[in-house]
């Protein structure tokens, strides 16, 4: 059993998977849900319902606002109460559709039974269209519309589909529970994906701290008799679930700066996305819910919940007994890359994978000291960058040097800041430098384009 990992950097935070034994549990319906129309990368979706309309579960309520955009479905049945701005996680207003819940009636054509459908349709175009219509987006974090990833640009060829079951973020266990409890569906989803990409081999990558999931998925593949799908056991290492890192670990190929995974022949999909692909293609079921890990050492009741999209965070927390007194920070996602929640009234989106409660002692930032040039940040950086240098350049605002030192390659995984013994807020500063470098690159590209067009005339 060979255990692989990516070739540069990485850190080993304690995995703290304290909710690993909690089976997926259905969260009761909230009285009202608030569904964002901008819960994916790309253009926001355009609402197609009006206030007062009756909607059913799985009914389209907003349509794509462009190619890189997707359908949004009602996650409940009930009446549209309002359409307008509402504060998101960070407290910033964004457009939401408010629906008062009445019963739980599903739209027609959706198979809500639990029967496993293993027969895959043969028309790949129809499959991609079903995925697009199902509103499937990457649930691993970036929420890129999945049909976009499955439509490689002309000239590029997929050689391997990688199903990302690493779940390298500490605390989170929703992918693990999905693999364990819905492994059959995930494997069928994987079979669909490899067929769509041209019957290429498919690797399901799982980190070694989930031996039960590894054994279960192996058993499922054998039982269903699928060829071309295998399980790869990965060493525990953060950020293995990062797309570029995972491709490097599985295929020993490095995606270039600014390039897409398809440039090295890889398509990566998260476990929950793969499940969503199965639902959309085999059951006509769009994304209306997703699995959310609710956890933290200070949180009394650990849980992995199936939550309808648009459920207010406060409703979830109250269901489990409310925010503990000692919690100082609530994070949507994991502790390394998740976002701190400023507003518990905010609603979940398709990509919400976890709610983590940290005490002040666990999360408090120490005051920064002098850089002691230990190089631990550079050792930890999975992109091979020099965070200590980028930190300085960012503070100095030296955009040219930032670009020369590849600040724009930063994936914001947080390894540098996690390992800095002087507690320097490296990533805070580097994010600004990265933005500046990206801005310069885009401005140059735009100027070159304009010049080329002017030359044509």
């Amino acid at each position, binding site marked *: 059993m060979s255990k692989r990992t990516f070739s540069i950097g990485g850190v080993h935070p304690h995995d703290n998977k304290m909710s690993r034994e909690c089976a997926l549990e259905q969260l009761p319906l909230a009285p009202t849900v608030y569904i964002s129309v901008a819960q994916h990368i790309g253009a926001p979706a355009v609402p197609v319902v009006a206030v007062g309309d009756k909607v059913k579960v799985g009914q389209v309520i907003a349509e794509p606002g462009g190619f890189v955009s997707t359908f949004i479905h009602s996650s409940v049945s009930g009446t549209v109460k309002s359409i307008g701005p509402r504060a998101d996680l960070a407290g910033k207003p964004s457009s939401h559709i408010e629906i008062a819940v009445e019963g739980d009636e599903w739209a027609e054509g959706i198979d809500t039974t639990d029967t496993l459908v293993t027969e895959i349709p043969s028309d790949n175009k129809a499959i991609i269209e079903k995925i697009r219509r199902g509103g499937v987006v990457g649930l691993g974090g970036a929420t890129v519309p999945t049909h976009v990833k499955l439509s490689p640009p002309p000239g590029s060829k997929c050689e391997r589909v990688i199903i990302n079951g690493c779940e390298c973020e500490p605390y989170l266990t929703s992918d693990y529970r999905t693999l364990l409890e819905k492994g059959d569906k995930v494997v069928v989803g994987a079979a669909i994906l490899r067929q769509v990409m041209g019957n290429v081999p498919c690797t399901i990558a799982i980190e070694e701290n989930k031996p039960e999931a590894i054994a279960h998925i192996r058993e499922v593949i054998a039982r269903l008799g699928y060829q071309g799908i295998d399980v790869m056991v990965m060493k525990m290492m953060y950020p293995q679930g990062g797309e570029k890192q995972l491709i490097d670990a599985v295929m020993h190929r490095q995606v270039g700066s600014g390039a897409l995974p398809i440039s090295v022949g890889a398509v990566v999909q998260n476990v929950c996305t793969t499940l969503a692909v199965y639902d959309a293609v085999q059951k006509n079921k769009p994304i209306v819910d997703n699995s959310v890990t609710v956890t933290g050492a200070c949180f009394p009741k650990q849980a992995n919940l199936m939550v309808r999209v648009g459920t207010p965070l406060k409703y979830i927390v109250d269901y489990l007994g409310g925010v*503990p007194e000692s919690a100082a920070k609530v994070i949507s996602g994991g502790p*390394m890359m998740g976002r701190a929640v*400023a507003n518990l009234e905010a609603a979940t989106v398709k990509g919400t994978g976890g709610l983590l409660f940290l005490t002040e002692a666990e999360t408090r930032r120490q005051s920064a*000291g*002098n850089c002691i040039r230990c190089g631990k940040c550079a050792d930890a950086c999975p992109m*091979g960058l*020099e965070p200590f240098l980028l930190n300085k350049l960012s503070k100095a605002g030296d955009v040219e040097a930032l670009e020369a030192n590849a600040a724009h390659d930063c994936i914001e995984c947080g390894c540098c800041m*996690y390992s800095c*013994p002087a*507690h320097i807020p490296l990533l805070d500063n580097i994010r600004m430098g990265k933005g500046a470098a990206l801005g310069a690159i885009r401005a140059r590209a735009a100027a070159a384009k304009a010049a080329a067009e002017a030359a044509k005339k």
Partner: protein
Amino acid sequence: MSKLIVSPSPHIHSKDSTRSLMLDVVIALIPAVICSVVFYGWQELLVLGVSVASCVLLEWAITKYMLKKPSTIGDFSAVITGILLALNVPYTTPWWVIVIGSIVAIGVAKMTFGGLGQNIWNPALVGRVFLLVSFPTYMTTWSQPQGLFGVDAISGPTPLGTVQEGLMQGATVQELTSAYNYKDLLFANLGGSAGEVCALALLAGFVYLCCRKVIKPWITLSIFATVALTSLIFWGIDPARFTDPAFNLLTGGLILGACFMATDYVTSPMSVWGGVVFGVGIGFLTMMIRYFGSYPEGVSFAILIMNSVVPLLNMWFKQKKFGRK
């Protein structure tokens, strides 16, 4: 819950801090400290005490009264400088000489540049070399270890000093080194500055630091390898003129320098290959100074010279960036 903290990711931090890393270095030095006190007696304890106290006090005073900033002595780096300086001077050094050494180490070499992390040269070594140049009498009168409960000290030069002096008088290396056996060198039975006398204790500390992942072994190993190789070549050419590899590895503070001074975070390159070049440079320069220089001992100078080129090494030896040529 009263108010939620909102800050950008990452939300957790490793247990490492500057203080914990420096404490590990202090722990790694404890065997050598115990060893030197056992072999040199209470006088060595006094040297250590004066050195550490003056380094820490000086840093505290400079941050408080001159820089008017929060004190940085809590990071333990001044303690390390104090211990290293003490291990680099003979136990007979008068207390006021040590205080002058601390002033140069902390005041000039460290705080003038902006404190921890900003200095170019290893502070303890700058202090040591300053004393060596300014007070050669105190710094080169070495004594045979008399032991914690020992009798009168016998004054005499260090093995390297003996050899250099002897060579100038026309003796051969074989005659001069026949008095030493390598077991003595390993187990600290010879004259030298405190840190030179117990190779095993120093190596134990080095292994501890590597196991705790405080330092990487490459700098130290490349110094040892270069010293061994260089002396092997010269010794092979003319064993009457040049000392052999084992003698060079075990004498003159090479182990102290390679394990604890050359591996100082601040003044060594960050990348593995930069570190290897740095180590090769130190090893080679040490041997050149020992064989052809006017000082019997070259480790301090070699490290300081290589400290100066660290910024260049950091520029030349960069890790390959992900997905880039």
